[in-house]
């Protein structure tokens, strides 16, 4: 069965979705990612969906679920590079995706995660 690769980059995990997401693939990604986050004790997850042209309500909810699950494991998820058409679709579908942080590209997403890590360290120090 095909799988979406999860790449470890320092403290972060990078997932680049480059094939059309079908439901089974999405479920497999959900499993793999949560297991990897727990195993690697990652500080953040980046999901790059810039080559994804079509997102349905199931995939939208799955992205939100992944973010909620990683948050439960103490890690933030940033979805990066969402296409305009996909963003419009998600809004028109009425999905709120409230657990998700977003960024324009991987660079900015990584900067966002680093800033959040720093903020949480500062909080702990106080």
């Amino acid at each position, binding site marked *: 069965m095909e799988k979406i690769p999860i790449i470890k980059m320092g403290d972060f995990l990078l997932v680049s979705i480059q094939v059309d997401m079908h439901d089974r693939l999405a479920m497999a990604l959900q499993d793999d990612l949560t297991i990897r986050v727990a195993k690697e004790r990652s500080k953040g997850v980046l999901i790059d969906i810039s080559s994804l042209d079509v997102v349905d309500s199931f995939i939208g909810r799955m992205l939100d679920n992944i973010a909620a699950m990683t948050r439960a494991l103490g890690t933030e998820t940033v*979805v*990066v*590079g*969402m*296409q*305009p058409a*996909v*963003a*419009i679709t*998600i*809004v*028109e579908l009425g999905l709120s*995706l409230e657990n*998700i942080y*977003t*960024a*324009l*590209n991987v660079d*900015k*997403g990584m900067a966002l995660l680093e800033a959040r890590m720093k903020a949480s360290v500062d909080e702990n120090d106080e």
Partner: protein
Amino acid sequence: MNDTFASKIPALLAKYETDLLEEWIKAQLDATTLRKDLLSSADLRRSSDEFLSLLRRAATTGNLLNLNAPEWLPVKDFLAGVSRSRASQGFTPSETATFIFSFKQPLFTRLQEECGSDSRALAEELWIATTLLDRLGLFTAETFLSSREDIIKQQQLEMLELSTPVVTLWNGILALPLIGTLDSSRTQVVMENLLQTIVETGSEYAIIDITGVPTVDTLVAQHLLKTVSAARLMGAQCIISGIRPQIAQTMVHLGVAFGDVITKASLADALSYAFKQMGITVLRKQN
């Protein structure tokens, strides 16, 4: 009506062409609907003359009632041209239709003279003449309206293109000054434009300025919120600026809320907020 009745109209048109033309032009000049400001009498004479000669040629075939026949094609083309040019010049439909309908009086007078005391033939002739001219008149009105619609459609399209510019204010800050009423189709164009520019420029902040939007009701607010949510999903932050005091008041009375979207009174405030978020400070040069 029987179509085999041999009408005198074709012969009449050929015989009295110049007289009919003079009388018709006089009738048009006397009509209260004549627009002397838009149409010179020379133009009127030229188009009347051309129409009359085309009508005469079409009528010689003897077919006076079936306008779909090929011999009427030149007449219809000419009338379509007249309607189109009058529509773009700003004539009203009745002013345009009068061009045809004012021909009735001179033609009827001639028919009356020609038929003399034969009232049955006169009735027959009048019926044919009036049907013919009514059909031509209706055709004129129809072309007039369809060309008016085309003009309106084109203007709407132009407005849509003109009214949604996305401006780069700073490296990483976009501005979208909205002018005019926001409806669904315009919002769609605005949204797509903005999101596309966000992707192209990699801007993290977008300021939507609604100074030029006359009213903000629940529908407009919903459209704006959709745009803001879509931009947020892509990783850009939207600031809504240019909310005038009256609009703020009506929004509160209507119960319209922008939720957790950042709103500022002016574009300047929004820009300075974006500067602050990006860690940019603007300093006056000391000298």
